């Protein structure tokens, strides 16, 4: 089984996000970058399948040079090879453009399965996985929480949660699966793994290397334009209900829910 994992680098969830003066982007100076947590589920699942059936796991990332660090993390976890698609012209590209670049980088690889996270936790678009599947002409199965490869390695069965129920989908291979929380518990990069990762192949590809036209990428070529970013409204202070007895407090709570919050 040869497996490709698509990986995005995103700001750490603990980062305080600040909107840049242009009002359309965020300040990236003090951000600590991590592998998108949903992609980490993909890496883990790929490694488990590889451990069962053999084969190779290739990690593909896109973005500036710093993305190398997240690819190395995946290599330290046990992936075999990395590809970084990096090009100044990619800066500001929308999801579709990203999907096009990724497709160009993976289409000629020998693969049975592609994993991506179900969405990036930064933009929350959730488009790249499905777009890549479409561009490659392979089935797309989203929000996998359980993945099983058949013994003959010809089909895959994926569980997807739907409104408290489980939808079980069977697909031929190759296919693309987007990983949802609950799929697995990703392993840690061990220290020997970290040291070994340095010696694993990591290729860099520019748009030209991929035979792509730079004018179709970047901010100017966006089909989805960002007009404005605004911070979420500040949370209003809570209200403490006063009262001598529980009965009094409950009555006051009911009154407020009825008259002020108007939910009763």
């Amino acid at each position: 089984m040869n497996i490709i994992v698509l990986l995005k680098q995103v700001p750490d969830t603990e980062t305080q996000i600040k909107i840049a003066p242009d009002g359309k982007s965020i300040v990236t100076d003090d951000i600590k970058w991590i592998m998108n947590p949903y992609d980490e589920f993909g890496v883990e699942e790929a490694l488990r399948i590889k451990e069962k059936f053999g084969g190779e796991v290739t990690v593909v990332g896109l973005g500036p040079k710093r993305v190398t660090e997240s690819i190395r993390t995946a290599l330290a976890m046990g992936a075999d090879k990395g590809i970084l698609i990096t090009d100044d012209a990619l800066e500001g590209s929308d999801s579709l453009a990203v999907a096009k670049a990724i497709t160009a980088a993976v289409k000629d690889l020998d693969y049975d399965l592609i994993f991506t996270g179900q969405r990036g936790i930064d933009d929350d678009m959730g488009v790249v996985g499905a777009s890549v599947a479409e561009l490659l002409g392979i089935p797309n199965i989203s929000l996998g929480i359980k993945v099983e490869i058949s013994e003959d390695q010809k089909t895959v069965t994926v569980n997807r949660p739907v409104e408290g129920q489980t939808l079980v989908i069977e697909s031929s291979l190759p296919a693309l699966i987007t990983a949802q929380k609950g799929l697995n518990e990703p392993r840690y990069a061990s220290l020997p793994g970290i040291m070994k990762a340095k010696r694993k192949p990591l290729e860099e590809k520019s748009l030209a290397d991929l035979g792509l036209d730079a004018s179709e990428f970047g901010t100017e070529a966006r089909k989805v334009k960002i007009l404005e970013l605004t911070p979420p409204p500040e949370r209003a202070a809570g209200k403490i209900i006063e009262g001598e007895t529980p009965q009094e407090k409950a009555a006051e709570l009911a009154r407020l829910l009825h008259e002020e919050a108007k939910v009763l």
Partner: protein
Amino acid sequence: MYFNEDHNALRATVKRFVDKEINPYVDDWEQSNVPLHDLFKKMGDLGLLGITYDPKYGGQGLDYWFDLVFLEELGHCKADGVPMAIGVQTHMATPAIHEFGSEYLKETYLKPAVAGDMVTAIGVTEPEAGSDVASLLTRAVKDGDSYVINGSKRFITNGCQADYVTLLARTSDDPGYHSFGLFVVPTKTPGFVVNKKLDKMGMRCSDTAELFFDDMRIPAENLIGEEGEGFIIQMKQFQHERFYALPGAYVSARDMIDMTVEYIRQRKVFGKPLIAKQVLRHRLAEWVTQLECLKQLTYHIVRMKMEGLDATREITMGKLFAGDLVFNVAHGCLQMWGGMGYMNETLISRKFRDSRLLSIGGGANEVMLEVIAKLEGF
């Protein structure tokens, strides 16, 4: 400036380990014990228990910057008893075996400790010998191919769970420092008795034991290095123990400051957030200045160790400074929390209790001062 991509990757792994495998459980462990076999196995699998040790024995063969990164991240544990237990395994009970032990000892005892299959303890302190190590009474008498050991140890960290204790015992009555042996003592040896887990003001998740040895017979090959050199070897091992304490101290101090700043930002007193008081802000500024000094001294020590220089003087100074720093910061931060800080539900109250140990354990402040004074020729 100091760290490369590999260091950062190790930092991320240890940080995540602390966040996921340690901190969610410390409240429970404080009521009972850290399950050391379980914890160490997980760490051994990740290659964290022998970072600087020879790969022949399962170590990673990496330099002291990696060790430093590891210790810094352990500093974020929400109960100091956890890093202390880990530190015993990596920096207090095994360095002597790695440095001076025979091939047999390394294969039989170092390797499983590095793999996380064996839990270790360091047995130096006795009822009659704490600061004055050389006054210890536990005796090891050579008898054919064995040593027969009688005596006791107290305040032994990991003592209830350990598979072996690295034990300092007297091998002759001659005065001076050449009358001791350092031994690897398996705890399942007949005559080895764990008397009890001691009840402490802090480090409550750490098991601290009182041990007795009653005609305990161990193979002579369990002696580390030469007979008569045990004290000298242990003094060298203390350098690792004391170094271990430094990164955790400035990281823990920083965490205490951060949690306190967060609290006094929102705590209103006399109509304004407490942080508006200049006297408090200045106090905080003084502490961060001091912790930066300790951090830089520690980085200097790492550089010295990398050059193969003897850093006894600097490590001793660091240990002294670290003990005072965490004590002062914990005390001062708790004051800013007021009555809330006195409540067991706040982390600062645990930090206050835990941090009290550093100026006593591993050599009290006064002992550090003695060493420094001696080295300075005063």
